[in-house]
């Protein structure tokens, strides 16, 4: 492999190096690269957001679908928050979005995050693993009781729950480390391989 002659690879390499330099010392190069990428990311959100508005609202409106006036009006009301006098109007579309989101997540999570999770604990007590799964779920739930003092049975159960959580946090810690390492390997493969061309 040889060194890249692709423009975007070169830009990406300069961006990558600039950001990595931050861990050694905060510097102007880093700050500029950071601003560049934050700006580009925000621009990207505008572009794709507009794509949705165009496909789902503007084009249908042009084809005579008048019902889309309602969401367009709601969407435009969001921007009233930049005008002192009318800023409270923006609460209406925010309320609409938040109410919709709350209703959706509530209706879904009772089934998927509570009922199905409890049901999955209905295991025969014929193996150590099954017993640990049931006991662990029970103990962790008891840890998060806040109106009952951690004494006696609840106290013991909560303590066991805490141990289970520490094993969880260890697993999360370990797998996060793995994730970050993978990402950095990816960045180095890019720098050494795609850019400099010194990897096979």
């Amino acid at each position, binding site marked *: 492999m040889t060194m890249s002659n692709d423009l975007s690879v070169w830009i990406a390499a300069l961006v990558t190096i600039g950001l990595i330099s931050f861990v050694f010392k905060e510097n102007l190069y880093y700050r500029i690269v950071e601003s560049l990428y934050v700006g580009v990311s925000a621009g990207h959100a505008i572009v794709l957001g507009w794509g949705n508005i165009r496909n789902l609202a503007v084009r249908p409106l042009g084809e005579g679908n008048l019902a889309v006036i309602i969401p367009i009006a709601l969407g435009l009301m969001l921007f009233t928050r930049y005008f002192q006098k009318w800023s409270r109007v923006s609460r209406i579309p925010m309320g609409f979005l938040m109410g919709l989101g709350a209703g959706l997540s509530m209706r879904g999570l009772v089934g998927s995050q509570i009922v199905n999770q409890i049901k999955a604990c209905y295991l025969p007590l014929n193996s150590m693993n099954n017993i640990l799964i049931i006991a662990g779920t029970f103990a962790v*739930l008891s840890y998060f009781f806040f109106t009952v003092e951690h004494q006696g049975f609840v106290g013991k159960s909560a303590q066991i729950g805490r141990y289970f959580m520490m094993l969880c946090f260890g697993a999360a810690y370990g797998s996060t480390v793995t994730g970050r390492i993978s990402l950095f390997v990816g960045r180095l493969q890019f720098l050494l391989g795609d850019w400099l061309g010194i990897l096979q």
Partner: protein
Amino acid sequence: MLRTATLVITFLAGFIMIAAFFFDVGFLSVAEAQIQDWGVIVAAFALAMASINLIQVNVNKAVSSENVTDKICSFVLLASLAGMSIIGLTKGPTSDTYNVLFDGIMAPGQSTVWALGVFYIASAAYRAFRVKNADAGLLLFSAAFVMLGAVPVGEVIWSGVPAVSQWIVDVPNMAGMRGMLIGAGIGAFSGGLRLLLGIDRTEVG
């Protein structure tokens, strides 16, 4: 009046979602579909709004900050935001120029920022990860196995590593996560209910 309207709209949007989920009634399904489609459009507007906040903060900085570096950075940010938006809106997000900016700046920028975490993990591992008590000991035990189980060298050290690592994730971790998942579900339900009924402190807006 405005406040009442907001509360009513918040409640209705959520209530119709919930009712349509449980009851198979014609008009509810129609209302559900309609509200969801509207939600997508309003959310697209909201997406642009987040960027406007960023513009506002940085215009202020570019104009009035006394720190020269801050001024330059805000200016760069605004210029790149404008450039990306203009190219995207005129030539589309699949055009060649747009792709150069996406592949050259946005994608590597974000992934490098995430990847930098490995350095902080390394120095915190060295300086701050102290096995002071049973909690930290258990955490380290589990973390070490899960880390070694994720790479080939784990098996070289001891052939049992992948199995122990998998067991930790599938049994004690699973049980603990499940307990937290159920608890967090109840918490989210409670937050949602308060929001729909307008009794939350962190009210809408």
